[in-house]
Protein backbone atom coordinates (compact mmCIF):
# COMPACT_ATOMS: atom_id res chain seq x y z
CA UNK A 1 0.00 0.00 0.00
CA UNK A 2 2.93 2.27 0.45
CA UNK A 3 4.73 3.21 -2.71
CA UNK A 4 7.47 5.09 -0.91
CA UNK A 5 10.08 3.56 1.23
CA UNK A 6 9.21 5.05 4.57
CA UNK A 7 12.12 6.93 6.09
CA UNK A 8 12.11 8.17 9.62
CA UNK A 9 9.35 10.77 9.21
CA UNK A 10 11.40 13.61 10.60
CA UNK A 11 15.08 14.02 10.40
CA UNK A 12 15.44 15.98 13.61
CA UNK A 13 18.06 15.29 16.21
CA UNK A 14 15.72 14.29 19.01
CA UNK A 15 12.62 12.35 18.03
CA UNK A 16 9.66 14.54 18.99
CA UNK A 17 6.82 13.14 21.01
CA UNK A 18 3.83 11.77 19.16
CA UNK A 19 0.90 14.13 19.63
CA UNK A 20 -1.65 12.02 17.83
CA UNK A 21 -1.62 8.42 16.73
CA UNK A 22 -4.48 6.96 14.77
CA UNK A 23 -4.23 3.23 14.42
CA UNK A 24 -6.19 1.31 11.84
CA UNK A 25 -9.59 2.92 12.42
CA UNK A 26 -12.77 2.01 10.64
CA UNK A 27 -15.75 4.33 10.57
CA UNK A 28 -19.27 3.22 9.79
CA UNK A 29 -22.15 5.63 9.14
CA UNK A 30 -25.71 4.58 9.92
CA UNK A 31 -24.45 1.13 10.91
CA UNK A 32 -23.97 0.13 7.29
CA UNK A 33 -21.83 2.53 5.26
CA UNK A 34 -18.16 1.76 5.73
CA UNK A 35 -16.34 5.02 5.06
CA UNK A 36 -12.90 4.55 6.55
CA UNK A 37 -11.37 1.15 5.93
CA UNK A 38 -8.41 1.07 8.22
CA UNK A 39 -6.73 4.47 8.37
CA UNK A 40 -3.53 4.92 10.34
CA UNK A 41 -1.59 8.09 10.77
CA UNK A 42 0.73 9.80 13.15
CA UNK A 43 1.22 13.46 14.00
CA UNK A 44 4.42 14.32 15.85
CA UNK A 45 4.36 17.22 18.27
CA UNK A 46 5.19 20.53 16.66
CA UNK A 47 4.59 19.47 13.08
CA UNK A 48 2.22 20.41 10.33
CA UNK A 49 0.89 17.23 8.79
CA UNK A 50 -1.49 17.21 5.89
CA UNK A 51 -4.19 14.80 4.87
CA UNK A 52 -4.82 14.91 1.13
CA UNK A 53 -7.43 13.39 -1.08
CA UNK A 54 -10.37 14.05 -3.36
CA UNK A 55 -13.96 14.64 -2.34
CA UNK A 56 -15.32 11.70 -0.44
CA UNK A 57 -11.92 10.18 0.24
CA UNK A 58 -12.54 10.31 3.99
CA UNK A 59 -10.54 13.34 5.11
CA UNK A 60 -13.32 15.00 7.05
CA UNK A 61 -14.48 11.70 8.50
CA UNK A 62 -10.97 11.01 9.75
CA UNK A 63 -10.79 14.40 11.47
CA UNK A 64 -14.24 14.01 12.99
CA UNK A 65 -13.37 10.55 14.20
CA UNK A 66 -10.42 12.07 16.03
CA UNK A 67 -12.37 14.99 17.51
CA UNK A 68 -15.34 12.75 18.28
CA UNK A 69 -17.86 14.79 16.31
CA UNK A 70 -19.12 11.79 14.36
CA UNK A 71 -21.89 10.95 16.76
CA UNK A 72 -24.11 13.79 15.58
CA UNK A 73 -23.92 12.41 12.05
CA UNK A 74 -24.67 8.90 13.15
CA UNK A 75 -21.14 7.77 12.45
CA UNK A 76 -19.17 5.49 14.67
CA UNK A 77 -15.59 4.31 15.02
CA UNK A 78 -15.97 0.55 14.98
CA UNK A 79 -12.34 -0.57 14.96
CA UNK A 80 -8.91 0.67 15.77
CA UNK A 81 -7.61 3.14 18.30
CA UNK A 82 -6.93 6.87 18.56
CA UNK A 83 -4.44 8.14 21.09
CA UNK A 84 -3.65 11.74 21.98
CA UNK A 85 -0.34 12.07 23.78
CA UNK A 86 -0.44 8.39 24.58
CA UNK A 87 -3.95 8.35 26.02
CA UNK A 88 -6.85 6.62 24.40
CA UNK A 89 -9.36 9.36 23.53
CA UNK A 90 -11.87 7.49 21.46
CA UNK A 91 -14.55 7.51 24.18
CA UNK A 92 -14.11 11.10 25.37
CA UNK A 93 -16.69 13.77 24.70
CA UNK A 94 -15.66 16.56 22.31
CA UNK A 95 -15.56 19.06 25.16
CA UNK A 96 -13.25 16.86 27.23
CA UNK A 97 -10.98 16.55 24.21
CA UNK A 98 -10.92 20.33 23.80
CA UNK A 99 -9.99 20.61 27.45
CA UNK A 100 -7.05 18.30 26.80
CA UNK A 101 -5.96 20.44 23.88
CA UNK A 102 -7.26 18.80 20.73
CA UNK A 103 -9.87 20.59 18.68
CA UNK A 104 -11.20 20.80 15.19
CA UNK A 105 -11.83 23.78 12.95
CA UNK A 106 -14.62 22.49 10.83
CA UNK A 107 -14.94 22.64 7.09
CA UNK A 108 -16.78 25.71 5.84
CA UNK A 109 -15.74 27.95 8.75
CA UNK A 110 -18.93 27.49 10.77
CA UNK A 111 -18.69 30.81 12.63
CA UNK A 112 -21.63 31.72 14.84
CA UNK A 113 -23.38 34.12 12.48
CA UNK A 114 -25.43 35.97 15.08
CA UNK A 115 -22.53 36.54 17.44
CA UNK A 116 -20.00 39.29 16.90
CA UNK A 117 -16.47 38.39 15.87
CA UNK A 118 -15.21 38.99 19.38
CA UNK A 119 -18.00 36.90 20.92
CA UNK A 120 -17.10 34.14 18.48
CA UNK A 121 -13.52 34.22 19.65
CA UNK A 122 -14.59 34.17 23.29
CA UNK A 123 -16.74 31.07 22.80
CA UNK A 124 -13.48 29.29 22.01
CA UNK A 125 -12.37 29.89 25.59
CA UNK A 126 -15.42 28.13 27.03
CA UNK A 127 -13.55 25.19 28.49
CA UNK A 128 -10.80 27.29 30.06
CA UNK A 129 -10.60 27.87 33.75
CA UNK A 130 -7.47 30.01 33.98
CA UNK A 131 -9.23 33.32 34.48
CA UNK A 132 -10.28 36.41 32.56
CA UNK A 133 -6.84 37.98 32.40
CA UNK A 134 -5.32 35.00 30.58
CA UNK A 135 -8.23 34.88 28.16
CA UNK A 136 -7.89 38.60 27.48
CA UNK A 137 -4.17 38.10 26.76
CA UNK A 138 -4.95 35.37 24.27
CA UNK A 139 -7.58 37.54 22.64
CA UNK A 140 -4.88 40.13 22.01
CA UNK A 141 -2.61 37.36 20.74
CA UNK A 142 -5.27 36.27 18.23
CA UNK A 143 -5.78 39.88 17.14
CA UNK A 144 -2.05 40.25 16.61
CA UNK A 145 -2.11 37.35 14.16
CA UNK A 146 -5.34 38.49 12.54
CA UNK A 147 -5.37 42.30 12.68
CA UNK A 148 -8.38 42.29 10.36
CA UNK A 149 -10.46 40.59 13.02
CA UNK A 150 -9.66 43.36 15.45
CA UNK A 151 -11.04 45.93 13.02
CA UNK A 152 -14.22 43.91 12.70
CA UNK A 153 -14.59 42.76 16.28
CA UNK A 154 -18.04 44.32 16.77
CA UNK A 155 -19.47 43.05 13.48
CA UNK A 156 -21.74 40.00 13.39
CA UNK A 157 -19.69 37.10 12.06
CA UNK A 158 -22.43 36.32 9.54
CA UNK A 159 -21.62 39.51 7.69
CA UNK A 160 -17.83 39.30 7.34
CA UNK A 161 -16.11 37.93 4.25
CA UNK A 162 -15.23 34.27 3.74
CA UNK A 163 -11.54 34.86 4.38
CA UNK A 164 -12.30 36.74 7.57
CA UNK A 165 -14.62 33.95 8.66
CA UNK A 166 -11.85 31.42 8.18
CA UNK A 167 -9.58 33.62 10.28
CA UNK A 168 -12.32 33.93 12.88
CA UNK A 169 -12.73 30.15 12.99
CA UNK A 170 -9.01 29.59 13.42
CA UNK A 171 -8.79 32.37 16.00
CA UNK A 172 -11.72 30.87 17.90
CA UNK A 173 -9.88 27.55 18.03
CA UNK A 174 -6.72 29.25 19.30
CA UNK A 175 -8.67 30.74 22.20
CA UNK A 176 -8.93 27.23 23.65
CA UNK A 177 -5.12 27.09 23.91
CA UNK A 178 -4.92 23.92 21.85
CA UNK A 179 -1.91 21.69 21.47
CA UNK A 180 -3.26 20.14 18.29
CA UNK A 181 -5.62 21.77 15.81
CA UNK A 182 -7.42 19.66 13.22
CA UNK A 183 -7.94 22.06 10.36
CA UNK A 184 -10.49 20.94 7.79
CA UNK A 185 -10.08 22.47 4.35
CA UNK A 186 -9.08 26.01 5.22
CA UNK A 187 -8.82 26.84 1.53
CA UNK A 188 -12.44 26.08 0.74
CA UNK A 189 -14.04 28.82 -1.32
CA UNK A 190 -11.22 31.30 -0.86
CA UNK A 191 -9.19 33.22 -3.45
CA UNK A 192 -5.67 31.84 -4.01
CA UNK A 193 -4.11 34.89 -2.41
CA UNK A 194 -6.19 34.42 0.74
CA UNK A 195 -5.37 30.71 0.84
CA UNK A 196 -1.71 31.63 0.86
CA UNK A 197 -2.31 34.18 3.63
CA UNK A 198 -4.15 31.65 5.79
CA UNK A 199 -1.44 29.01 5.39
CA UNK A 200 1.21 31.62 6.11
CA UNK A 201 -0.49 32.32 9.44
CA UNK A 202 -0.88 28.61 10.19
CA UNK A 203 2.84 28.28 9.60
CA UNK A 204 3.60 31.18 11.96
CA UNK A 205 1.31 29.77 14.63
CA UNK A 206 3.08 26.47 14.29
CA UNK A 207 6.50 28.04 14.73
CA UNK A 208 5.73 30.79 17.23
CA UNK A 209 2.90 29.39 19.32
CA UNK A 210 4.01 25.76 19.03
CA UNK A 211 0.62 24.59 17.82
CA UNK A 212 0.62 21.25 16.02
CA UNK A 213 -1.59 21.05 12.95
CA UNK A 214 -3.26 18.25 11.07
CA UNK A 215 -4.65 19.89 7.92
CA UNK A 216 -7.09 18.17 5.58
CA UNK A 217 -6.79 19.76 2.15
CA UNK A 218 -7.76 19.34 -1.47
CA UNK A 219 -5.32 22.01 -2.50
CA UNK A 220 -2.38 19.62 -2.69
CA UNK A 221 0.01 22.19 -4.02
CA UNK A 222 -0.32 24.64 -1.13
CA UNK A 223 -0.65 21.96 1.53
CA UNK A 224 2.53 20.18 0.52
CA UNK A 225 4.48 23.41 0.54
CA UNK A 226 3.62 24.17 4.17
CA UNK A 227 3.35 20.69 5.65
CA UNK A 228 6.25 18.54 6.69
CA UNK A 229 4.59 15.23 6.15
CA UNK A 230 1.58 14.12 4.15
CA UNK A 231 -0.90 11.30 3.87
CA UNK A 232 -2.97 10.67 0.78
CA UNK A 233 -6.38 9.12 1.23
CA UNK A 234 -8.37 7.39 -1.47
CA UNK A 235 -11.65 5.64 -0.83
CA UNK A 236 -11.15 5.51 2.90
CA UNK A 237 -7.61 4.14 2.80
CA UNK A 238 -4.21 5.72 3.09
CA UNK A 239 -2.63 4.96 -0.28
CA UNK A 240 0.55 6.94 0.08
CA UNK A 241 2.42 8.78 2.76
CA UNK A 242 5.78 10.42 3.17
CA UNK A 243 7.62 13.65 3.87
CA UNK A 244 6.16 16.54 1.91
CA UNK A 245 9.15 16.92 -0.43
CA UNK A 246 9.08 13.23 -1.29
CA UNK A 247 5.37 13.43 -2.06
CA UNK A 248 5.90 16.50 -4.20
CA UNK A 249 8.49 14.60 -6.26
CA UNK A 250 6.44 11.43 -6.53
CA UNK A 251 5.36 10.83 -10.13
CA UNK A 252 1.87 9.63 -9.20
CA UNK A 253 1.22 12.58 -6.94
CA UNK A 254 2.46 14.92 -9.65
CA UNK A 255 0.16 13.39 -12.18
CA UNK A 256 -2.99 12.87 -10.15
CA UNK A 257 -2.88 15.63 -7.58
CA UNK A 258 -0.70 18.39 -8.97
CA UNK A 259 -1.71 18.09 -12.62
CA UNK A 260 1.90 17.67 -13.78
CA UNK A 261 3.56 14.84 -15.69
CA UNK A 262 6.88 14.03 -17.26
CA UNK A 263 5.84 15.88 -20.38
CA UNK A 264 4.88 18.98 -18.45
CA UNK A 265 1.42 20.18 -17.73
CA UNK A 266 -1.16 17.80 -19.04
CA UNK A 267 -4.14 18.97 -20.97
CA UNK A 268 -7.47 17.42 -20.15
CA UNK A 269 -8.03 17.11 -23.89
CA UNK A 270 -5.62 14.17 -23.93
CA UNK A 271 -7.37 12.21 -21.25
CA UNK A 272 -9.71 9.80 -22.98
CA UNK A 273 -11.64 8.63 -20.00
CA UNK A 274 -12.66 12.14 -19.10
CA UNK A 275 -16.18 12.56 -20.34
CA UNK A 276 -16.04 16.15 -21.37
CA UNK A 277 -18.94 16.10 -23.71
CA UNK A 278 -21.45 15.17 -21.09
CA UNK A 279 -20.46 18.04 -18.92
CA UNK A 280 -21.51 20.54 -21.52
CA UNK A 281 -24.88 19.07 -22.16
Amino acid at each position, binding site marked *: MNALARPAPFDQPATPRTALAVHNIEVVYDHVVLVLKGVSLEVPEGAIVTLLGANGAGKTTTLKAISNLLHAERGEVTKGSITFYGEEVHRLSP*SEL*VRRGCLQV*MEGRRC*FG*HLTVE*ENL*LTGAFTRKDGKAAIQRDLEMVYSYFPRLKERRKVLAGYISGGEQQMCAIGRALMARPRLVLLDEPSMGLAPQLVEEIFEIVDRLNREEKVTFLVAEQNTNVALRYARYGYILENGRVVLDGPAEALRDNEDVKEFYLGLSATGRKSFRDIKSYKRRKRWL
Partner: protein
Amino acid sequence: MAELGPVLEVLLGGLMSGVLYSLVALGFVLIFKASGVFNFAQGAMVLFAALSLVRLSEWLPFPVAIALTIAIMIALAWAVERLVLRPLVGQHGLILFMATIGVTFFLDGFGQTIWGSNVYQLDLGISASPWFLLENLFPGGILVSPVDVFAAAVAGSLVLALSIFFHSTKIGRALRAVADDHQAAQSVGIPLNQIWLIVWSTAGVVALVAGMAWGSKLGVQFSLSFVALKALPVLILGGLTSIPGAILGGLIVGAGEKLAEFYIGPAIGGGIEYWFAYVLALAVLLVRPQGLFGEKIIERV
Protein backbone atom coordinates in the same frame (compact mmCIF):
# COMPACT_ATOMS: atom_id res chain seq x y z
CA MET B 1 -62.76 62.50 29.24
CA ALA B 2 -65.77 60.40 29.96
CA GLU B 3 -65.14 57.99 27.04
CA LEU B 4 -61.43 57.83 27.68
CA GLY B 5 -61.93 56.05 30.99
CA PRO B 6 -63.31 52.77 29.63
CA VAL B 7 -60.81 52.75 26.76
CA LEU B 8 -57.91 53.13 29.16
CA GLU B 9 -59.33 50.42 31.32
CA VAL B 10 -59.68 48.04 28.37
CA LEU B 11 -56.18 48.92 27.21
CA LEU B 12 -54.68 48.34 30.63
CA GLY B 13 -56.54 45.06 31.04
CA GLY B 14 -55.30 43.98 27.62
CA LEU B 15 -51.71 44.85 28.43
CA MET B 16 -51.91 42.93 31.66
CA SER B 17 -53.25 39.79 30.03
CA GLY B 18 -50.65 40.32 27.33
CA VAL B 19 -47.96 40.01 29.94
CA LEU B 20 -49.36 36.61 30.80
CA TYR B 21 -49.11 35.53 27.16
CA SER B 22 -45.55 36.81 27.17
CA LEU B 23 -44.67 34.63 30.13
CA VAL B 24 -45.65 31.52 28.20
CA ALA B 25 -43.99 32.75 25.00
CA LEU B 26 -40.80 33.37 26.93
CA GLY B 27 -40.42 29.66 27.61
CA PHE B 28 -40.70 28.89 23.90
CA VAL B 29 -38.16 31.56 23.01
CA LEU B 30 -35.62 30.33 25.54
CA ILE B 31 -35.58 26.80 24.22
CA PHE B 32 -35.80 27.79 20.59
CA LYS B 33 -33.02 30.32 20.96
CA ALA B 34 -30.61 27.94 22.60
CA SER B 35 -31.35 24.67 20.89
CA GLY B 36 -33.29 25.44 17.74
CA VAL B 37 -36.10 23.20 18.99
CA PHE B 38 -39.64 24.47 18.87
CA ASN B 39 -40.81 23.04 22.17
CA PHE B 40 -44.47 22.29 21.79
CA ALA B 41 -44.47 20.93 25.35
CA GLN B 42 -44.11 24.40 26.91
CA GLY B 43 -47.86 24.60 27.58
CA ALA B 44 -47.84 21.16 29.17
CA MET B 45 -44.89 22.26 31.29
CA VAL B 46 -46.92 25.25 32.50
CA LEU B 47 -49.74 22.93 33.55
CA PHE B 48 -47.40 20.40 35.11
CA ALA B 49 -45.55 23.04 37.12
CA ALA B 50 -48.77 24.65 38.33
CA LEU B 51 -50.27 21.28 39.28
CA SER B 52 -47.16 20.26 41.19
CA LEU B 53 -47.11 23.54 43.05
CA VAL B 54 -50.79 23.45 43.99
CA ARG B 55 -50.75 19.90 45.23
CA LEU B 56 -47.47 20.23 47.07
CA SER B 57 -48.59 23.43 48.76
CA GLU B 58 -51.55 21.54 50.22
CA TRP B 59 -49.28 19.84 52.73
CA LEU B 60 -46.12 21.95 52.63
CA PRO B 61 -45.46 25.60 53.40
CA PHE B 62 -45.70 27.66 50.21
CA PRO B 63 -42.00 28.59 49.84
CA VAL B 64 -40.98 24.95 50.33
CA ALA B 65 -43.51 23.90 47.72
CA ILE B 66 -42.06 26.41 45.27
CA ALA B 67 -38.52 25.17 45.88
CA LEU B 68 -39.64 21.58 45.45
CA THR B 69 -41.50 22.41 42.24
CA ILE B 70 -38.39 24.07 40.84
CA ALA B 71 -36.47 20.90 41.68
CA ILE B 72 -39.13 18.85 39.89
CA MET B 73 -38.88 21.06 36.80
CA ILE B 74 -35.10 20.65 36.77
CA ALA B 75 -35.48 16.89 37.10
CA LEU B 76 -37.92 17.01 34.21
CA ALA B 77 -35.40 19.01 32.15
CA TRP B 78 -32.80 16.39 32.92
CA ALA B 79 -35.11 13.57 31.87
CA VAL B 80 -36.05 15.30 28.62
CA GLU B 81 -32.40 15.94 27.79
CA ARG B 82 -31.39 12.40 28.62
CA LEU B 83 -34.27 10.46 27.10
CA VAL B 84 -35.39 12.63 24.21
CA LEU B 85 -32.82 15.17 23.07
CA ARG B 86 -29.62 13.20 23.47
CA PRO B 87 -30.69 10.22 21.35
CA LEU B 88 -32.03 12.60 18.70
CA VAL B 89 -29.03 14.91 18.43
CA GLY B 90 -28.27 15.87 14.85
CA GLN B 91 -31.73 14.98 13.63
CA HIS B 92 -33.88 17.30 11.59
CA GLY B 93 -35.74 20.07 13.44
CA LEU B 94 -39.10 18.60 12.51
CA ILE B 95 -38.22 15.31 14.21
CA LEU B 96 -37.32 17.14 17.40
CA PHE B 97 -40.58 19.07 17.14
CA MET B 98 -42.53 15.82 16.87
CA ALA B 99 -40.66 14.51 19.88
CA THR B 100 -41.79 17.54 21.90
CA ILE B 101 -45.39 16.81 20.89
CA GLY B 102 -44.87 13.38 22.39
CA VAL B 103 -43.55 15.00 25.55
CA THR B 104 -46.64 17.24 25.63
CA PHE B 105 -49.09 14.36 25.71
CA PHE B 106 -47.00 12.43 28.17
CA LEU B 107 -46.79 15.40 30.54
CA ASP B 108 -50.50 16.19 30.27
CA GLY B 109 -51.42 12.62 31.13
CA PHE B 110 -48.69 11.91 33.65
CA GLY B 111 -49.28 15.18 35.50
CA GLN B 112 -52.96 14.45 35.94
CA THR B 113 -52.29 10.84 36.91
CA ILE B 114 -50.05 11.74 39.80
CA TRP B 115 -51.56 15.08 40.82
CA GLY B 116 -55.21 14.52 39.98
CA SER B 117 -57.40 16.16 37.38
CA ASN B 118 -59.70 18.39 39.39
CA VAL B 119 -59.73 22.16 39.22
CA TYR B 120 -57.52 23.43 41.99
CA GLN B 121 -57.47 26.91 43.39
CA LEU B 122 -54.08 28.54 43.59
CA ASP B 123 -53.95 31.27 46.17
CA LEU B 124 -50.94 33.50 45.91
CA GLY B 125 -52.01 35.52 48.91
CA ILE B 126 -52.75 38.55 46.77
CA SER B 127 -56.12 40.09 47.37
CA ALA B 128 -58.51 39.44 44.53
CA SER B 129 -60.41 42.67 45.01
CA PRO B 130 -59.45 45.09 42.25
CA TRP B 131 -57.84 48.44 42.70
CA PHE B 132 -59.44 51.57 41.35
CA LEU B 133 -56.90 53.99 39.96
CA LEU B 134 -57.27 57.66 39.04
CA GLU B 135 -60.70 57.93 40.58
CA ASN B 136 -60.39 61.69 40.62
CA LEU B 137 -59.91 61.76 36.82
CA PHE B 138 -62.48 59.27 35.63
CA PRO B 139 -65.84 58.46 37.07
CA GLY B 140 -65.45 55.12 38.82
CA GLY B 141 -61.72 55.09 38.19
CA ILE B 142 -59.80 52.45 36.24
CA LEU B 143 -60.17 48.92 37.42
CA VAL B 144 -56.90 47.02 37.81
CA SER B 145 -56.38 43.53 39.18
CA PRO B 146 -53.52 43.22 41.68
CA VAL B 147 -52.72 39.72 40.38
CA ASP B 148 -52.14 41.17 36.93
CA VAL B 149 -49.89 43.86 38.31
CA PHE B 150 -47.94 41.24 40.20
CA ALA B 151 -47.59 39.09 37.07
CA ALA B 152 -46.42 42.09 35.09
CA ALA B 153 -43.77 42.94 37.65
CA VAL B 154 -42.52 39.35 37.74
CA ALA B 155 -42.44 39.12 33.96
CA GLY B 156 -40.55 42.38 33.72
CA SER B 157 -37.86 41.35 36.12
CA LEU B 158 -37.62 37.91 34.53
CA VAL B 159 -36.98 39.47 31.14
CA LEU B 160 -34.39 41.80 32.52
CA ALA B 161 -32.56 38.97 34.24
CA LEU B 162 -32.68 36.74 31.18
CA SER B 163 -31.42 39.48 28.85
CA ILE B 164 -28.46 40.10 31.08
CA PHE B 165 -27.86 36.38 31.33
CA PHE B 166 -27.91 35.87 27.57
CA HIS B 167 -25.80 38.84 26.63
CA SER B 168 -23.19 39.25 29.28
CA THR B 169 -22.33 35.88 30.72
CA LYS B 170 -20.14 33.13 29.43
CA ILE B 171 -22.93 30.57 29.63
CA GLY B 172 -25.32 32.93 27.86
CA ARG B 173 -22.85 33.39 25.04
CA ALA B 174 -22.47 29.62 24.80
CA LEU B 175 -26.26 29.28 24.65
CA ARG B 176 -26.42 31.66 21.72
CA ALA B 177 -23.54 29.83 20.03
CA VAL B 178 -25.36 26.52 20.38
CA ALA B 179 -28.46 28.11 18.90
CA ASP B 180 -26.49 29.20 15.85
CA ASP B 181 -24.67 25.98 15.12
CA HIS B 182 -24.81 22.86 17.32
CA GLN B 183 -21.88 21.12 15.77
CA ALA B 184 -19.59 24.12 15.63
CA ALA B 185 -20.37 24.81 19.27
CA GLN B 186 -19.49 21.23 20.08
CA SER B 187 -16.25 21.53 18.14
CA VAL B 188 -15.03 24.39 20.33
CA GLY B 189 -15.77 22.39 23.45
CA ILE B 190 -19.19 23.63 24.51
CA PRO B 191 -20.94 20.61 26.06
CA LEU B 192 -24.35 20.41 24.42
CA ASN B 193 -25.83 18.23 27.15
CA GLN B 194 -25.08 20.71 29.90
CA ILE B 195 -26.35 23.61 27.81
CA TRP B 196 -29.62 21.85 27.10
CA LEU B 197 -30.05 20.97 30.73
CA ILE B 198 -29.59 24.63 31.67
CA VAL B 199 -31.99 25.86 29.03
CA TRP B 200 -34.74 23.36 29.78
CA SER B 201 -34.40 24.01 33.48
CA THR B 202 -34.71 27.75 32.91
CA ALA B 203 -37.71 27.17 30.68
CA GLY B 204 -39.15 24.97 33.43
CA VAL B 205 -38.83 27.78 35.96
CA VAL B 206 -40.39 30.24 33.52
CA ALA B 207 -43.21 27.72 33.03
CA LEU B 208 -43.70 27.66 36.79
CA VAL B 209 -43.99 31.44 36.94
CA ALA B 210 -46.45 31.39 34.04
CA GLY B 211 -48.35 28.57 35.71
CA MET B 212 -48.61 30.54 38.94
CA ALA B 213 -49.90 33.63 37.17
CA TRP B 214 -52.39 31.78 34.98
CA GLY B 215 -53.35 29.31 37.66
CA SER B 216 -54.26 32.02 40.13
CA LYS B 217 -56.43 33.60 37.46
CA LEU B 218 -58.16 30.60 35.90
CA GLY B 219 -57.64 27.92 38.50
CA VAL B 220 -55.18 25.11 37.93
CA GLN B 221 -56.78 22.73 35.47
CA PHE B 222 -56.20 20.89 32.22
CA SER B 223 -57.20 23.83 30.02
CA LEU B 224 -54.11 25.62 31.28
CA SER B 225 -52.03 23.68 28.79
CA PHE B 226 -53.94 25.41 26.00
CA VAL B 227 -52.66 28.85 26.94
CA ALA B 228 -49.63 27.74 24.94
CA LEU B 229 -51.73 28.17 21.82
CA LYS B 230 -52.18 31.83 22.66
CA ALA B 231 -48.41 32.12 22.81
CA LEU B 232 -48.04 31.13 19.16
CA PRO B 233 -49.21 34.44 17.65
CA VAL B 234 -47.13 36.22 20.26
CA LEU B 235 -44.09 34.32 19.06
CA ILE B 236 -44.75 35.06 15.43
CA LEU B 237 -45.28 38.72 16.20
CA GLY B 238 -42.25 39.15 18.41
CA GLY B 239 -39.92 36.78 16.63
CA LEU B 240 -39.02 33.31 17.78
CA THR B 241 -35.56 34.26 18.95
CA SER B 242 -36.11 37.49 20.81
CA ILE B 243 -36.78 37.79 24.53
CA PRO B 244 -37.88 41.44 24.37
CA GLY B 245 -39.88 40.42 21.29
CA ALA B 246 -41.82 37.88 23.31
CA ILE B 247 -42.72 40.56 25.83
CA LEU B 248 -43.65 43.23 23.32
CA GLY B 249 -45.46 40.68 21.17
CA GLY B 250 -47.50 39.65 24.20
CA LEU B 251 -48.39 43.26 25.00
CA ILE B 252 -49.44 43.96 21.41
CA VAL B 253 -51.55 40.82 21.20
CA GLY B 254 -53.10 41.41 24.61
CA ALA B 255 -53.94 45.07 24.04
CA GLY B 256 -54.88 44.48 20.40
CA GLU B 257 -57.44 41.79 21.04
CA LYS B 258 -59.12 43.66 23.87
CA LEU B 259 -59.27 46.92 21.91
CA ALA B 260 -60.55 45.09 18.84
CA GLU B 261 -63.25 43.53 20.98
CA PHE B 262 -64.11 46.95 22.40
CA TYR B 263 -64.24 48.86 19.13
CA ILE B 264 -65.13 46.35 16.41
CA GLY B 265 -66.74 43.72 18.59
CA PRO B 266 -70.16 45.36 18.98
CA ALA B 267 -70.41 45.91 15.21
CA ILE B 268 -69.98 42.28 14.23
CA GLY B 269 -71.30 40.54 17.26
CA GLY B 270 -68.25 40.01 19.44
CA GLY B 271 -65.89 37.11 19.95
CA ILE B 272 -63.10 38.89 18.12
CA GLU B 273 -60.63 38.38 20.89
CA TYR B 274 -60.53 34.66 20.22
CA TRP B 275 -59.15 34.97 16.72
CA PHE B 276 -57.81 38.50 16.45
CA ALA B 277 -54.29 37.49 17.53
CA TYR B 278 -54.04 34.83 14.84
CA VAL B 279 -55.08 37.21 12.08
CA LEU B 280 -52.56 39.70 13.36
CA ALA B 281 -49.87 36.99 13.31
CA LEU B 282 -50.81 36.06 9.77
CA ALA B 283 -50.47 39.66 8.66
CA VAL B 284 -47.06 39.93 10.30
CA LEU B 285 -45.91 36.70 8.64
CA LEU B 286 -46.70 38.19 5.25
CA VAL B 287 -44.77 41.37 5.84
CA ARG B 288 -42.00 40.38 8.21
CA PRO B 289 -41.50 36.63 8.48
CA GLN B 290 -38.85 36.86 11.19
CA GLY B 291 -41.18 38.85 13.45
CA LEU B 292 -40.63 42.29 14.91
CA PHE B 293 -37.43 41.46 16.76
CA GLY B 294 -36.47 38.07 15.41
CA GLU B 295 -32.95 37.47 14.26
CA LYS B 296 -32.55 38.42 10.67
CA ILE B 297 -31.89 35.45 8.50
CA ILE B 298 -28.37 36.29 7.48
CA GLU B 299 -27.63 35.71 3.85
CA ARG B 300 -24.46 37.01 2.36
CA VAL B 301 -24.58 37.77 -1.30
